[in-house]
């Protein structure tokens, strides 16, 4: 059981590190938070109907991603507000669906904080599959994604269809969120996606280096958190998320010290 949890933590660390860099660089943290909540009703509905949870999550996530992309093309204020509406609306809808089923309420808190210690063999297989897909997408599409992200106007002028690439990125994030949330919960998912990548960004401005560091930080905080959780008997998800925060805080302090010393 512990072995499975360790394997899952390593896989999730790699997966979130890979996608986290894109999320941090493109400032999509709030969108990611919204996704963790907005895919919730899809997952609940799938479990009520009896389809694969991953499928339900991905379908709702895709609808949400396209909706956000359509709603927010025009103004910044509306974008933030629409994402906020998704967060609260999605969660409330999921909770309402849960309420129609009796004896379901413990799933609500495991949705928040996850249950990485009870991860199953099929969860592991799903994570491996999604990891392969995401790594492939990010590797193959690295250049256009980078171009469309940093210089949308230039990319459009060069004939790159930025809208399409943006949607591809959003869908990849959906896939990661839907895979990671059942195992580790919404809060830890957000934490593992944002914190290691934000820490990596403090050390390097080059995307490949940043990605490598983010993966490393993600895996390290996962293992450290799991160790702490096993030894002091505290919730695993929460201690992993705190470990990720510690990595960021240490990076931040070190960088400040390094800069304070005249080079």
């Amino acid at each position, binding site marked *: 059981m512990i072995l499975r949890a360790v394997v899952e933590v390593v896989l999730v660390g790699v997966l979130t590190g890979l996608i986290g860099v894109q999320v*941090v660089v493109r*400032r*999509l*943290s*709030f969108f*990611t*938070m919204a996704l963790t909540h907005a895919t919730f009703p899809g997952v609940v509905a799938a479990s009520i109907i009896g389809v694969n949870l991953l499928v339900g999550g991905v379908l709702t996530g895709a609808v949400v991603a396209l909706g956000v992309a359509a709603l927010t093309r025009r103004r*910044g*204020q*509306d974008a*933030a*507000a*629409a*994402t*906020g*509406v998704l*967060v*609260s*609306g999605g*969660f*409330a*809808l999921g*909770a*309402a669906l849960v*309420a*129609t089923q*009796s004896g379901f*309420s*413990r799933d*609500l*808190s*495991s949705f*928040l*904080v996850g249950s990485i210690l009870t991860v199953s063999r099929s969860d592991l297989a799903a994570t491996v599959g999604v990891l392969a897909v995401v790594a492939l997408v990010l590797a193959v599409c690295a250049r256009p994604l980078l171009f469309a992200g940093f210089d949308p106007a230039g990319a459009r002028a060069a004939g790159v269809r930025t809208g399409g690439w943006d949607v591809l990125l959003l869908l990849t994030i959906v896939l990661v969120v839907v895979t990671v949330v059942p195992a580790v919960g919404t*809060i*830890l998912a*957000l*934490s593992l996606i*944002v*914190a290691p*990548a*934000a820490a990596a960004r*403090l050390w390097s401005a080059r995307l490949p280096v940043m990605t490598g560091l983010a993966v490393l930080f993600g895996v390290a905080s996962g293992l450290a958190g799991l160790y702490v959780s096993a030894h002091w*008997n*505290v*919730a695993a*998800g*929460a*201690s992993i*998320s*705190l470990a*990720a*925060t510690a990595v*960021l805080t240490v990076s*931040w302090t070190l*960088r400040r010290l390094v800069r304070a010393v005249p080079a």
Partner: protein
Amino acid sequence: MIEPFAVPFMGRALTEIALLALICGPVSVFVFVRRLSFVSDALTHTVFPGVVIGFVAGGIEGLFAGALVAGLLTAVVLTVLTRAARLTDDAATAVVLTAMFSIGVVLVSRRTSYTSDLTAFLFGRLLTVTPRQIAETAVLAAVILVALAIGARAWLFRAFDPAGAAAAGLRVGWLDLWLNVLLALVVVAAVRAVGTILVVALLVVPAAAARMITARPAVMALAGTGLVLVAGYAGLLLSWTASLRYGVALTSASAVVLMLVLAYLLLLPVRRWRDRSFAGGLT
């Protein structure tokens, strides 16, 4: 349509929502124009460790103080972090949110059955609101409305023209801090009664929906308050009917949120139509 609210606890729930409607209409306008939805969401999560520590230290009485301290701390930390350039503001907000919430989870996970605490925190206990809580909310509502009346002009100036506001001698950093503190106060006032999910919805949705029908801040605030009142009434009625007639344990907080979101979705086409007719009028 009235008689459910003759039952005392339903009447009290409606009173609490009406008080919150008074605050959240105007406050959500600032959330909208300053794009603070993520900050509001973060605040609702970060008061959690405060609630836990407050409860351990001082029982039920300690909840309020703990939440207040945690809320104010978050407001300060978020303001400082988002002004430091190395970390983008959304990443900083996400990290503060997850870190503080995790501290809360670590603290409660030491106790045996923490899932019910978590559920209560998420959905609040709207139907068990006590007269005392209503009094607390009313006092905070008065404080918040006075603060709004004093700061509204400066905050609007800062929202629409930061450079102009700074040039006119306003201290933008302090304005941001005070607005975050105000948000923290709203969250603290509301979170125990109505739960985190409803607080986020109350802070984000009213102005976002009102923006569909008007662009004037004062009108947005009024429309937002009206919307919360209607959605609160409809949501409570829905949850009452669902529980009694159909045996579906729909929490009242989620019902109110769903009503608010429904209003937002229904108003979306209005915005489309307004934009189109506006553009047509210009050309």
